[in-house]
């Protein structure tokens, strides 16, 4: 079986700052991978590289066995297959929620408006936002905006969904509604890579947990192995710090 997503020795530098060092990963279809690690360890950059929002300096990225990094790749086609949800939602403020969700299907996939809106209605009903479809994003709470952003990414029917710390900007009481949707998606077999600080959630939802430190994969494996009995000292130290922080 070929993996849906595989990274082979991916390097990324910002000037002289090495953000990713020969990252090698594999993720099968219908699997969920959580990226954990301290702030600045390269989680977000890794996700942005997979979606080609940042070019990589060396190494190769494959989606479904097809090379999607390097010159001459049709990035717009790649991005149709890979959706991303950002920490700061990034909804389009000049469009209603419905228009946010239907923009890409209409303009990129050339779907007729009625069809795109029917799909959007289904998605929005499912995440409980259909009654806000005609509202502008600034009238919505953070949790609602983030759910709308997930709907916008799903409307393109991606094979892989990247979630970049999607609950970090939310008030604590709004985190649940967003994570609930991610959990549902995982149950339905959506392939996902998520950067997260929610360890309990990562343990529940993922098939693979991957601990990044200083831009390289320090340790990865099943959630129990990484989060309960990590082998690497750096992983142990990181989890200890998280535990202490939670106790406070």
């Amino acid at each position, binding site marked *: 079986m070929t993996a849906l997503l595989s990274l082979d020795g991916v390097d990324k530098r910002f000037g002289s700052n090495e953000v990713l060092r020969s990252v090698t990963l594999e993720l099968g279809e219908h699997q969920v991978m959580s990226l954990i690690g301290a702030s600045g360890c390269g989680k977000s950059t890794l996700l*942005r590289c997979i*979606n080609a*929002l940042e070019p990589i300096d060396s190494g190769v990225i494959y989606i479904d066995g097809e090379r999607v990094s390097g010159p001459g790749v049709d*990035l*717009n*086609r790649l*991005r*149709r297959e*890979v*959706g*991303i949800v*950002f920490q*700061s939602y*990034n*909804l*389009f*403020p*000049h469009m209603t929620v419905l228009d946010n969700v239907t*923009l*890409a299907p209409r*303009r*990129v996939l050339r779907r007729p408006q009625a069809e795109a809106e029917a799909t959007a209605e289904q998605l929005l009903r499912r995440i409980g936002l259909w009654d806000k479809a005609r509202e502008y994003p*600034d009238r919505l709470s953070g949790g609602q905006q983030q759910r709308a952003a997930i709907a*916008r*990414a799903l409307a*393109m029917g991606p094979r892989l969904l990247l979630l970049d710390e999607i609950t970090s900007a939310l008030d604590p009481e709004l985190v649940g509604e967003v994570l609930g949707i991610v959990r549902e998606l995982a149950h339905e077999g959506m392939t996902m890579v998520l950067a997260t600080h929610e360890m309990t959630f990562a343990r529940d939802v993922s098939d693979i947990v991957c601990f990044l430190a200083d831009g390289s994969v320090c340790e990865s494996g099943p959630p129990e192995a990484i989060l309960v009995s990590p082998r690497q000292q750096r992983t142990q130290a990181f989890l200890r710090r998280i535990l202490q922080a939670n106790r406070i």
Partner: protein
Amino acid sequence: MTVMNSGRANPPQPAPEAAAAAAGARSPSGLPGARPWPYLALLVPPTGIPAMRRYRASRRAARNGDGFTARALAAESATWSWYSAALGFAALLLAFAVLFLTANHNAVIEKFFNPGVLRSSAPEILRGFLVNVELFLIAELLVLPWALFVACLRMLPGPASRPIRALAIAYVDLFRGLPAVVAIYLIAFGFPIAGLPVLGSMTGFELCILALVLIYGAYVSEVFRAGLQGVHWSQTAAARSLGLSHVQTLRYVVAPQAIRRMIPPLLNDFIGLQKDTALVSFVGLLDAFNQSRIVASNEFNLSAVTGVGIAFVVITIPMARLADRLTARDARRRQGSSA
């Protein structure tokens, strides 16, 4: 505290020293003392009298030991005094203006605002002003696509388009630095003298429009560029991540958000363009300013020129107000969305 030693005789006043001391004890800071400003305010009676009344009442309250009322009244008195100061200052300036207009047996009114000259020159001036209006309307319509084109050239991505970007930058630098009157002079006089094909056979009117479009195209292209670059890059990231192309991202996501910010500075540049149409009189076009200069030298009276000034001011006021309103609305909206 000055309250204590202000020895104003006020008959129904039990034990002034003690009361003031009590007031002082209750409110250790900020008790109103004797100050000169309410007396100065009396120079402007409509606001000076209320200021004075409140000041007196405040002093009385202070002596009776009611520090709270005293402070409140003193604050009101200060407000009225400020009104007086502002009103007095404005009246002073107005007086100087009247003095200026009426000096030397109404010389200024006679030479600048002569009703007879204004009336008799009005038809010519208005006919000339139509030339100005035509100039700026046509130039404004042409500036928009031209400036957009220049802005797009300047924002072309990638190292390959560096020469094109450099050219666009050179154009913007040149026409922003060149005085408008010099540019108009060079183009409207120079092109026909040089006998250039096409350009040389254009009329003076057309060449003036060309010059104005070139000058204001430089300014407006900067407005466009700033507007488009002012949209946060995360919006572009979101659009591109959904598979929208570079052009689609500009068309559906960046431009609609940028236009709202571009309109106020754009209107400002248009006001400048409207005013600069008066410069075409230097290359012999019979616009309003040129007409008025002819009248001025014939009559030895500048009233016709004043008339042109009034016409320009009147026609830019709506644009200026609109620009102000849009700027204010934009500021409100930005505040509202950040709250």
